[in-house]
């Protein structure tokens, strides 16, 4: 929409003012890593962070959320859960922005998920451009998520002593006008921005050995690959990969009852297709009983099934699953190996 300039002190003031009216979350340091967390003071923010342990997804699809409360007497009097406060998510990287766009599609298409959508509608996203790769595990350039044209309300690019602020939505424009002392970007600012953006691209490298547009067919052709059995031998079915994934949205639903045995709540919480019981029915039959088939299912979802269903890739190249896996199963490794096998004709 338009481009504004916010000095670093003005950005701190912006965040401080937001804190009066919004729940504000952003990247903060935590035990030697970074996490997205609610902040109380702008000084907690580390806008120049490599990556976070968990993606910002947790503010839209919480690890655990109450769907409704009930009373067991009289068959159950149902009460809606408490509402989420208006939230500003700061410092979202563009890989995670792409992931949020997928989640938006998943939860607003077909049967409308009012819990996600209500929370999303109350959330403003202030994303930030990555100017260098976060570590050796990310492969955003290969996945086309190294930047984003949409999905943000405001998008920051660090120009050293100031941020260039790209206004993405009307809500972002209003947020900036109400809470920040920004100035319109002039010709020099735009030149600085262009120089910074131009300098960033060569710092990232392509890590897939083929173009991402081929990924769905690489996976489909790889359905029968012996690789899945190898992965199944290594995989510990710990579900770390899916727990840290910004696009995983599968969940479990369960009831919890208070100690008075009358009041209770139905809770939705993250689940994982990597866990043994994920596809098991009440009679005991497990429709995806081996770790090999579960790993295959995970990668098929990431690179094909989700794309077919929702027009967004299910992998955004953030590298979190690769960092989390203690037996070194990585999407780059898997995708490239499938491609190598197919090139070798095996």
């Amino acid at each position, binding site marked *: 929409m338009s481009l504004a300039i916010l000095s670093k002190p003005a950005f701190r003031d912006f965040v401080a003012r937001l804190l009066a009216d919004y729940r504000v979350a952003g990247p903060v340091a935590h035990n030697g890593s970074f996490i997205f967390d609610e902040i109380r003071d702008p000084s907690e923010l580390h806008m120049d962070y490599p990556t976070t342990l968990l993606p910002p997804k947790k503010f839209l699809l919480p690890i655990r959320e109450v*769907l*409704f409360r*009930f*009373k*067991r007497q*009289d*068959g*159950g009097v*149902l009460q*809606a859960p408490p509402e989420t406060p208006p939230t500003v998510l700061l410092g979202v990287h563009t890989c995670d922005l792409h992931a949020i766009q997928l989640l938006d599609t*998943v*939860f607003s298409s*077909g*049967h*409308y*998920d*009012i*819990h996600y959508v209500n929370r999303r509608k109350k959330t403003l996203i202030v994303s930030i451009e990555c100017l260098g790769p976060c570590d050796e595990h990310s492969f955003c350039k290969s996945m086309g998520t190294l930047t984003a044209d949409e999905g943000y309300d405001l998008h920051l690019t660090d120009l050293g002593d100031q941020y260039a602020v790209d206004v993405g939505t009307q809500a972002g424009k209003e947020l900036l006008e109400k809470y920040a002392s920004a100035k319109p970007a002039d010709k020099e600012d735009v030149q600085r921005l262009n120089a910074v953006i131009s300098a960033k691209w060569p710092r990232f490298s392509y890590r897939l050995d083929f173009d991402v547009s081929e990924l769905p067919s690489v996976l*489909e052709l790889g*359905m029968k690959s012996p690789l899945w059995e190898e992965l199944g031998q290594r995989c510990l079915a710990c579900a770390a990969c899916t727990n840290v994934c910004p696009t995983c*949205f*599968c*969940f*479990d*639903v*369960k*009831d919890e*009852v208070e100690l008075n*045995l009358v009041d*209770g709540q*139905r809770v*939705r919480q993250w*689940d994982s*297709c990597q866990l043994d019981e*994920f*596809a*098991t*029915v*009440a*009679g005991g*039959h497990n*429709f*995806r009983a081996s770790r090999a*088939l579960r790993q295959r*299912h995970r990668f*098929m979802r990431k690179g*094909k*099934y989700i794309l*077919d*269903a929702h027009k967004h890739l299910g992998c955004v190249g953030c590298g979190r699953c690769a960092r989390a896996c203690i037996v070194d199963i990585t999407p780059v490794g898997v995708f490239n190996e499938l491609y190598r096998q197919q090139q070798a004709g095996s």
Partner: protein
Amino acid sequence: MVAIASYPQTQLYPDIAKDIYLPFLAEIVEIRPMTALEKVFTIELPKGMSLGHRPGQFMEVSVFGVGEAPISISSSPSRSNGTFELCVRKVGDVTTALHSLKPGDKVGLRGPFGRGFPYENFRGKDLLFVPGGLGLAPLRSLINQVLDERAHYGRVIILYGARNPGELLFKEELKAWGERDDVELYVTVDRADETWTGNVGVVTTLFKYISIYPRNTVGITCGPPVMYRFVLMEFFAKGISEGNIYLSLERRMKCGVGKCGHCQINNVYACQSGPVFSYREIKGLEEAL
């Protein structure tokens, strides 16, 4: 991978249209014990509304404090009249809790969900039903729908198998079907007892008793996971084409609305595109059978 045909959508019960996870409450008006493990629950909808389901669809049934489970609807739309029936096997936490309920108790309900049988397309054709065990529960909905508009269909052949005579479901209805001139019913048990005088063997042993005209026959089956491959072989041996074979598949439909992921068969959400599929639709899905 595989294109799943579009199908007539049923409306969700209005109470849950806004929040797809919020059940509505309905009263159990009758509970009929069937076997040691199965009971049939008759449930009355509030305000005399009808469920508006299709045969083959399922409900998510809540016992608050225990949880929610997907249960196929066992009654036919033709006999809805403000109530519907669920045949429930006591096999998990929710179904065990359901079995402890009494008439007058309330349950939470969401649905009806899923794609049912396209029975309008079956009109004029011979129908070969092959339910195994609890697979009769969803097929009974379609069978009774067909019997209530009997003139629209050709032959109705039912091959039903249970593990033993004590596990046969809907015995009174089986008897009534058996007495009709326009229903060809064959029943078998895997293991007989002293009361049993009929066929002994798995359900596929009944195929030898029937002759069909395959070009005009629709084969419809539902049963335990192990059964499908063997029934399919019999359907093919009789010459029924892939597009005329319909299967209702069991999966762990946790949310019922295509989000939670538990029921996925490769790229297909069984709760949305199924649980009823033609064989032609699922033959390319490695995880289906």
